[in-house]
């Protein structure tokens, strides 16, 4: 029966091809959309995995860039038992770099990070940027009073700069002393300089910073949670209250954002799948209508209702199998090509492809249910006469 079903599909190549296009395009769309979501999630997870400590920002600020805190908070945090070091940081969107705008998208913004190298030396695990140096060196104590900066490999490539050269930020030139590469899209848009220089460039008051990087003595999550609460309690009565966020909490916040994206993707994917199912339904319905006399002949020769139902469902499932496989192939191809132009790599995981393929098969079968029911219900004599 399988051979017969395949033959029936091949006998009407144009119509089968149109149904396959409908299925494969919708499956490719699902693969593409979910791959993008997965890539975004993967990039964020990778980034957060590189940040081991706690980030302390002004209460209710969504990001250090929008936060302002007194630099004096650092000493009070370091006095809390279990805290290894508290490093003040200043994050700001850079004024234009090399004459170009820097806030050109969620993933491509260039930011300035001001670091306090003296306090930095107290970090036992080092900072993510210290651990990711590729050439030259990180900002050190001796850079105080200089315009020395460290840039990422990505920015070095983008602006064709390297150690020994300089980069223009706003109207000033800044000598490059090091190049780092964390591999994270979010982190690699950063130009690092001495905290005092960043304060000057950003036009910040000297006694203010945007945030603090806090390292605990222990890596135990329970201990981190305790320190978090202690820090928030320490400043609970201050006019500038703080939020302390661990990697887990960043993931939770980002996860909530991605869940909204997932709902959107689910709706778009469902529409695509529905359209694909309609395509199969249309093809199978027309095929059944054209073949009414054939079904009459089959029934006259001993085919039961269930046999006819099976034949039509196998045909539509075959469309789903081929369309699902083609859709997965198209999706992977599209994601590979699109990945070259995107700031992160979309992830078409085997589980996603398996799910998308299965969706194609189910879609094919569902599209064949009604046509199969119609074919099975035909009266053999009337069906033969219809020819």
């Amino acid at each position, binding site marked *: 029966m399988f051979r017969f079903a395949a033959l029936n599909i091949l006998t009407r190549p144009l119509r089968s091809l149109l149904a396959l296009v409908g299925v494969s395009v919708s499956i490719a769309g699902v693969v593409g959309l979910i791959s993008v979501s997965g890539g975004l999630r993967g990039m964020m997870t990778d980034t957060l995995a590189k940040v081991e400590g706690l980030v302390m920002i002004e209460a209710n600020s969504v990001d250090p860039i929008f936060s302002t805190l007194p630099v004096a908070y650092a000493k009070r945090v370091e006095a809390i038992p279990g805290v290894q070091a508290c490093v003040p940081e200043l994050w700001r969107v850079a004024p234009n770099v090399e004459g170009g705008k820097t806030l050109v998208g969620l993933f491509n913004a260039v930011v300035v990070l001001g670091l306090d190298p003296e306090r930095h030396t107290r970090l036992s695990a080092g900072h993510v940027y210290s651990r990711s140096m590729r050439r030259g060196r990180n900002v050190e104590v001796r850079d105080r009073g200089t315009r020395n900066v460290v840039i990422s490999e990505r920015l070095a490539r983008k602006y064709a700069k390297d150690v020994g050269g300089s980069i223009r930020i706003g109207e000033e030139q800044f000598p490059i002393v090091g190049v780092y590469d964390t591999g994270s899209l979010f982190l690699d848009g950063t130009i690092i300089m001495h905290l005092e220089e960043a304060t000057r460039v950003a036009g910040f008051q000297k006694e203010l910073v945007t945030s603090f990087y806090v390292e605990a003595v222990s890596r135990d999550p329970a201990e981190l949670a305790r320190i978090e609460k202690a820090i928030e309690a320490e400043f609970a009565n201050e006019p500038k209250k703080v939020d302390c966020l661990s990697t887990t909490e960043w993931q939770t916040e980002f996860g909530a954002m991605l869940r909204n994206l997932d709902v959107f993707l689910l709706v778009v994917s469902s529409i695509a799948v529905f359209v694909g199912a309609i395509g199969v339904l249309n093809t199978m319905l027309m095929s059944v209508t054209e073949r009414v006399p054939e079904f009459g002949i*089959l029934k006259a020769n*001993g085919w039961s209702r269930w046999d006819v139902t099976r034949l039509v469902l196998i045909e539509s499932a075959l469309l789903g199998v081929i369309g699902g496989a083609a859709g997965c192939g198209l999706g992977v191809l599209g994601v590979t090509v699109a990945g070259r132009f995107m700031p992160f790599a979309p992830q078409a995981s085997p589980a996603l492809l398996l799910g998308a393929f299965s969706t194609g098969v189910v879609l094919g079968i569902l599209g064949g249910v009604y046509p199969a029911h119609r074919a099975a219900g035909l009266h053999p004599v009337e069906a*033969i006469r219809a020819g």
Partner: protein
Amino acid sequence: MSEAVIEAKDLAKSYRASGRPVEALRGVTLSIARGSMTFLVGPSGSGKSTFLQLAGGLDRPTSGTIAVDGRDLGSMDDRALSAFRRTRVGFVFQAFNLIPNLDAVDNVLIPFYASGLAAGMRDRARTLLGEVGLGDRLGHRPKQLSGGEQQRVAIARALLKDPALLLADEPTGELDSKTGAAIFALLRGLQRDRGASVVVVTHDTRHIEPGDRIVRIADGAVVGDSPA
């Protein structure tokens, strides 16, 4: 030869055509003996084909009963009736009724495609096609065969079941007289050599031979029943 293969009692069938009620059969009582050659003759629209369809389990009676091999077809469910059509009865239609995208061998195997038995019967299908003179047309599709050749494929398909009952509805209606004679020779061979009961609906009485039974039907009723 006296045992009945078909036993119809007060058989009636009515249906609606173009919104009007049509009484195709009006209380036919008829018994057809096993191994016989029976011709149903009569004017168009008299109910001959309807009787054949009821005897073959292609349709259900409105009232009365029809039994084949002692089994009441009206009381069978879809699965049992399908199995009956697949294994007990062979059909030969005027319009051949072959599947256009299958070759001769696969058309012969159609009854057993769904049950998965077709693969094991392929050699027998080839042999049967050889017996009806189509040994060199095995891979041909219906469009590549003449009318007579298509009807031979249909007969081979009926023979594959080794049926106790073969029903033929105007089997030579679309064939020239020479080809028609050859087809009748095949049907008669099936009756004589294999002991099958053959019931033929026809307008063409030239092929009736002494010993055959002729049942005349008019206006849905049996109006004559005699040996040739």
